């Protein structure tokens, strides 16, 4: 008799479990949980504060605008996991967020080394994983089904350096045909310049020299003399922040007075602080700057008011990323992880959608590797106390200043 009762009880429980799990997504009017695995403590914690703030602001904005309409206005509930700046911990947090908090999707921020490991855990747990900031070369090449990333890989970004150089040349009369290339010698500098160099050669430019240097070197004089002796009309440079400063000073000292197109490090305020007024006329590249008119400008203003810190490019990507996840849940009309993954893979948000915050992006859409190939960059020049957008033309604030950057 006791055994029969036990058997009944177990049977009822099983039925109840089957019913609830089948009906779960359709009936869910509770909050939709999104997991965020950020390095909230440890070596990277300082940089991740902006990511957490941006995620919270995005969630608050979505909820204030009515939540997930397709799920009867369900609110989004953020669940934060701390990677402690460590890849193994990040992977464990991914599993915890899925198994304990039952999140619908997971987002991470940076660096690529942590993303590489935490996205493996996501693949195992079959949870959609959006890398908002990381863009390492190998990340999208692993054939993962649940992995998505908002930024194009570093190697592709080199194309934009070539495009910006070509644009600046044409805007300045098209007389610069000889390009000198100088880059730091790790995979970062090499992959950027490889693709940029190829593009430039295809476009008819002569690459006068290609110099790889050690970014830790205290002196780059010999390298810059070699660059100068190759007589370039314009220089393409890929460097980290410290060597950007060193190169700038060496160019100045050795009298290399040609425009330099640089791939994104000079946007760091520390560069401007270190080189002083000599920054005038420098070119660099960015995904976004706060002088670009559009919806991110308003987000940046509200963010700064709320948190008292500037809204940087990392925060901008995280903010956009949360809205991308929201759009995929709307499309899936469900919190089912498989359905959300399918929705993300086929997501096509047009560029004029009010929730595509980057006016320079061509909407949002992921390719078969999970890469958002719509990301576009801005070409910037320092003119009169600030970075000004000079490229692409529809977003340009001003024309490039073609006079020698090193007076």
């Amino acid at each position, binding site marked *: 008799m006791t055994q029969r009762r036990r058997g009944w009880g177990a049977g009822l429980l099983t039925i109840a479990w089957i019913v609830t799990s089948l009906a779960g997504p359709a009936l869910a009017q509770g909050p939709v949980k999104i997991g965020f695995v950020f390095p909230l403590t440890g070596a990277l914690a*300082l940089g991740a504060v902006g990511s957490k703030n941006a995620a919270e602001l995005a969630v608050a904005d979505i909820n204030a605008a009515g939540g997930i309409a397709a799920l009867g206005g369900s609110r989004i509930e953020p669940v934060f996991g701390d990677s402690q700046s460590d890849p193994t911990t990040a992977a464990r947090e991914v599993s915890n967020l899925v198994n304990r908090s039952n999140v619908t999707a997971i987002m991470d921020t940076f660096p690529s080394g942590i993303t590489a490991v935490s996205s493996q855990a996501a693949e195992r747990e079959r949870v959609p994983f959006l890398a908002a900031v990381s863009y390492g070369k190998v990340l999208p090449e692993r054939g993962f089904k649940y992995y998505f990333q908002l930024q194009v890989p570093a190697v592709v970004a080199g194309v934009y350096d070539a495009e910006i150089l070509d644009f600046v040349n044409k805007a300045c009369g098209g007389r610069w045909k000889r390009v000198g290339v100088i880059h730091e*010698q790790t995979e970062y500098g090499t992959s950027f310049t490889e693709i940029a160099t190829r593009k430039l050669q295809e476009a008819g430019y002569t690459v006068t020299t290609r*110099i*790889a*240097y*050690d970014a*830790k*070197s*205290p*002196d*780059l*004089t*010999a*390298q810059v*003399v*070699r660059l100068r*002796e190759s007589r370039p009309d314009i220089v393409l440079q890929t460097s980290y*922040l*410290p060597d950007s*400063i*060193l190169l700038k*000073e060496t160019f*100045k*000292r*050795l*009298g290399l007075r040609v425009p330099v197109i640089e791939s994104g490090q000079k946007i760091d305020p*520390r560069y401007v602080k*270190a080189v*002083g007024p000599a920054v005038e006329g420098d070119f660099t590249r960015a995904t976004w700057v706060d002088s670009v008119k559009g919806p991110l400008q308003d987000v940046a203003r509200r963010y700064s008011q709320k948190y008292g810190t500037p809204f940087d490019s990392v925060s901008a990507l995280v903010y956009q990323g949360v809205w991308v996840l929201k759009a995929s849940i709307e499309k899936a009309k469900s919190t089912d992880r498989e359905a959300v993954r399918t929705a993300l893979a086929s997501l096509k948000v047009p560029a004029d959608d009010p929730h595509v915050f980057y006016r320079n992006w061509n909407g949002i859409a992921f390719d078969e590797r999970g890469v958002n190939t719509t990301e576009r960059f801005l070409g910037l020049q320092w003119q009169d106390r600030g970075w000004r957008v000079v490229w692409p033309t529809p977003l340009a604030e001003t024309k490039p200043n073609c006079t020698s950057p090193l007076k």
Partner: protein
Amino acid sequence: MVILAQALATGLVFGSLYALLSSGVALQAGVMKIINITHGHVMAFAMYLTWELHRRYAIDPYLSVAVTVPVSFGLGSAIYILFLHTARTRDPLNLVIITLGLTAILESAFLIAYSADLHTLRVASLDRPIVLGPVIVSVAQVFALGLSLLGVAAMYAFLHLTYFGRAIRAAAENEYAARLMGVDTSRVRAISFGLASATAGLVGTLLMPMFHVTPVVGWEFLLWAFVAVVIGGLGSMTGALVGGLLVGLAQSVTGGFFTGHVSAVLLFGLMIAVLLWHPEGLLGERAVR
């Protein structure tokens, strides 16, 4: 030709800085038979000090030598007296690990005080280029070359011409015999550590107007100073000079013609060759001479 001339000129500048830094490593290696890992971070400490003195009190970097060199001397002596003296009879590996620990503490202190950010000190008059035919150097580089060679010469003269210098050399050659002759070897070691750290302090101050300081800047310089000392001969002053100049010139000249990897292959290759076939170094001396 222009590239070679320029590479030789700047190679000489950085070579002389490596030589001065290496002379400190050689001195410590001579009297204590250990490599002091903290040496590079003492240099970083002097860089921060130079930067602070300029930022707060607008003190010219070359005048700040009057502060940074004695303070670095004090720091080096204190490291010896407080930590290494007690452990001096233990396994040399213990001593090296102590200096490694001190390095980690110093680095954390830099991080707490200045964050991981890089700091630069630039004076327009020192950035001015000086044109010597095909070669262009900055005023700061000329100062660095002159003062670091002067530093090496002063160290050499001190060790050879003064009573105390001779006591250091005697203690390095045979500590027991030196003690029998009435040399206070503990004092010798404390002062040697101070002197060696003073060279790191001078290098830091000379470097500041042309480079930048970060909490980890010391590692790279220590590595090359170490390579220079092994190539030149552990514990040899002239060896440190030759080794330092060789490192600076090799880095600059190879950098002018090849990628940055070439100088590392060349210098580490040479270091291994020296250790295999000429372990006492190219100059072949065994003690501080």
